[in-house]
């Protein structure tokens, strides 16, 4: 019996050894291909990602090999980023903090560091965030700060929100809200008045779903003398989509705003309420002297009638 188990053990040991040898051969061959690969690099990267940890040491060698072209090092880094390995975390940090390293590669290495606890390198990350040569990659470092030191991450996203536009500003706003939910209203009120379309859209969506909604804050922005119609429109859009009965008088007032954007949105917003909730106000305005008010009121009444049947 003992002999049988010894033979069985030996058999499995040989099998595992053969499997490991075969896998290593496969890794060596795929990593070698990555050293010269062009557009077809995913054909080699995907099997390596599937193999996972055993492929990491050879891939790190590729990533660090300065005799290779930047592209071939970069695709090795990108492959490593898809294998969540602590060995790559250490190597990626080394690459990131090496000022003599190619900035593009350093930036690519950040993707492999997201989600890891980086509290032990928070000072180095903050220093890097403020490095002039790394200006274009600030947003990626700010993301790493999220798992290093949330106070520093807040500081970074605060700055990014004020200095970036488009996608960068939108991401910064998203992170500021997540980091300090209690401050979200202040940020959203600011963002809804901003110039950037993406950021203000995010602010509108967030305000529609916010549990800490600040009605008075929004109303005071709306009533600011000289406030532009686009901002007023956004506010009406938010009120219309929150569907709170308390906002009906305000929407009725907006229905009479001279701005086409504002009064049209108010009409659409009023249709989201029950007929009996708005009927009285609509009837009172039915014979208004202003044609655009009459047009809007008639449309709202028509929609409410449709919903009734």
């Amino acid at each position, binding site marked *: 019996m003992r002999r049988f188990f010894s033979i069985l053990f030996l058999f499995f040991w040989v099998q595992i050894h053969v499997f490991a040898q075969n896998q290593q051969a496969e890794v060596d061959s795929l990593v070698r291909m990555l050293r010269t690969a062009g557009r077809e690099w995913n054909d080699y990267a995907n099997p390596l990602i599937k193999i996972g940890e055993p492929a990491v040491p050879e891939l790190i060698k590729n990533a660090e090999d300065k005799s290779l072209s930047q592209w071939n090092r970069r695709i090795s880094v990108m492959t490593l980023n898809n294998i969540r390995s602590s060995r790559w975390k250490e190597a990626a940090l080394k690459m990131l903090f090496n000022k003599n390293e190619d900035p593009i590669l350093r930036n690519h290495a950040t993707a492999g560091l997201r989600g890891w606890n980086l509290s032990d390198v928070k000072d180095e990350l903050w220093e890097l965030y403020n490095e002039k040569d790394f200006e274009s990659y600030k947003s990626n470092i700010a993301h790493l700060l999220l798992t290093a030191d949330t106070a520093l991450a807040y500081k970074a996203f605060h700055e990014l929100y004020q200095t970036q536009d488009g996608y960068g500003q939108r991401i910064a706003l998203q992170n500021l809200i997540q980091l300090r939910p209690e401050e979200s209203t202040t940020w959203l009120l600011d963002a809804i008045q901003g110039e950037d379309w993406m950021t203000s859209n995010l602010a509108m969506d967030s305000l529609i779903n916010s549990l800490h909604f600040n009605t008075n804050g929004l109303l005071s922005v709306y009533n600011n003398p000289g406030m532009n119609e686009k901002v007023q429109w956004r506010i009406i859009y938010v009120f219309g989509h929150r569907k709170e009965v308390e906002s009906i008088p305000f929407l009725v007032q907006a229905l009479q705003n001279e701005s086409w954007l504002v009064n*049209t*949105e108010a009409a659409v917003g009023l249709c989201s309420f029950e007929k009996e909730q708005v009927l009285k106000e609509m009837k009172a305005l039915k014979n208004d002297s202003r044609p655009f008010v009459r047009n*809007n009121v008639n449309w709202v009444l028509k929609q409410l009638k449709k919903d009734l049947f």
Partner: protein
Amino acid sequence: MKKLTIIFLYFFLISACNQASRYQKRLPKSDSSNLKFAPYFYAENPNLPSPAVTETGRELILLKTKNNLFAWMDGTVENGEPFNYKKRLYGKGNQLMAEDKDFPYFAKTGIHSDNELRETKLITGRSVSQITVDGRPWGSSGVGFMAEDETIMSVIYADNQTVKGLGLTHPDIARPLFHFWNISRDFEKYEVVSITKERLEFESLIYNGNEIKFKIQGSRGWQESIFNDEILGSGHIEIWRELSPEELEFLKKNYSQLTIEQFEQLQKKLSHFHTSEMVFFYINRYGFYEGHTEYRPDPVTVAVIFGLVTIKDAHRACRSDLYNYFNTHFTKNPE
């Protein structure tokens, strides 16, 4: 099974008839039995009507190559497989679809009624003010779908008046654009003349007796629609033709008050446009040509280039002031 076929045929005929009633212009008939199609190339212009419709309802267009060969191609406007850059699907898409929920009159007749436009506050479930905010410059696209002082409704309303004035419908304007788009998607199929092995370059299409030139350029990524629909845009398309001596003569006679620069501008506005394929779908579905942006295929320009109307008709439809027409933004909402 038979029943199913009959039901299918019924709905097919109904939809075909619906679209047919949306056109004001009829295509000339063509006997296709004598025609040879690409990859066959004629050494000389066959001098037959183009566009033309065959007895089986296929719409044919005559193409000309850089080395003066001619070829017939099928550009039939129809609904086909999905067209979606995001999913890498390159079918014809919904070329006959018209927005019937928000614009039932338009869907039936191919032209909006003023009343329908006055009462429109939602299109595809989005408020017209939201579409306007997204469609202005630096909204969902940098150049925008309309100018800063225009709204989605003011643009649709103004263009509807113009198209009505031209005696056409929006599908009439969309059809030549779709003809062009449909054949251009087949160019790669005929890259080389099979007999002479010569490299082919399609240079122009022959349309209502005019030789119309074009340039198509792709771009990275795509532009999302401002409506809640599947339409996307990616290409840059330029279409133009030379005005005839008679047309130029007419313009010179009626626009002598313009400076040389203004006259040249008018000439270009009448004979050249730049656009993207998403607008072709917008025209047929909503009667929307974009406002005053660099992607607008103005209905007057399209009608003149493709020979749907004469310059004289266009001049009359634009209150005898084409220059002013092309240079005035649409700011009046249908109220």
